[in-house]
């Protein structure tokens, strides 16, 4: 399966998806005007991964900002991970900066929808 690496830009996050290691990283800002287009390769990659996943899948989500159009795409990513969770043990680490209540709350919102436990991790600014 193909590794997907996207360098972060002022409007899009760094994505590192390494199927061979069962590892996914989303980090930085996600504020593109057209999020669907940006997240499409990752969504497709996760679909392919679910056919033959590792026994354990670790996901680090460390977003600084995301817009509402990305929030739907992040939910799509999480729903794919929820589906993978049947075939692999999925661990989702949700990082938020100290005092960033909005980002913590965003993680809690997703946790209420997605049936995979989140680990909330506070990081220093």
């Amino acid at each position: 399966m193909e590794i997907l690496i996207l360098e972060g830009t002022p409007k899009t996050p760094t994505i590192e998806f390494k199927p061979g290691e069962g590892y996914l990283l989303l980090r930085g800002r996600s504020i593109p005007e057209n999020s669907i287009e940006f997240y499409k390769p990752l969504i497709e990659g996760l679909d392919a991964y679910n056919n033959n996943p590792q026994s354990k899948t670790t996901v680090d989500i460390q977003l600084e900002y995301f817009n509402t159009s990305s929030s739907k795409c992040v939910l799509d990513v999480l729903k794919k991970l929820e589906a993978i969770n049947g075939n692999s043990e999925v661990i989702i680490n949700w990082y938020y900066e100290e005092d960033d209540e909005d980002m913590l709350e965003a993680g809690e919102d997703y946790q209420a929808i997605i049936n995979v436990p989140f680990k909330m991790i506070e990081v220093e600014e």
Partner: protein
Amino acid sequence: MENIHDFYTKMEEGNIMLSFKGEVTSDLLTSILQIMESKMDTLEEPPVVKKKVYNILVECLQNLYHHLESDDLTTPINEKSALFMIKKQNDEYSIMTGNYMVKDNVEPMKKRLDTINAMDSLQLKTYYKEVLNNGEMSSKGGGGLGMIDIARKSGKKLEYRFDNVDDKLTFFSLNVKVAQNKNKEEKVK
């Protein structure tokens, strides 16, 4: 010659940090966000305030961007232009936008804003999750979350008005204030 000093004084008295009138493009959004970020760095705003203002800016600007993009192509260029201002007064930020809107869209927009304004923060949270999970996503990825998110992050009621332009157009003004030093207790109230 027009009196430029008058313009300057008006903006100075209005505590306007940044204003823009014209067509909203993707590159323009990037630039405005960068300018505001460095301005807030210079002012040494606390990270919490910076993030809130930045988030609301993104949503307001992208609302304008998608609104202008979605309007039909027959719209004259001056009607596609929008106004955008950021004001800071007594530690409170206000993000103001203005744009033309076809009359048919006024009632749905007013209804949406009134629905949001009638909710407290817990109701907004529930509503956001509901729309996030069940709402149809538009082709651009919007899907009606923008205003709910703006209201959640602002912590204040959304101020708006519609001014009649002619038989088909209305001018829509929105003022989003960013509550400062908000703590958990206040939010739950």
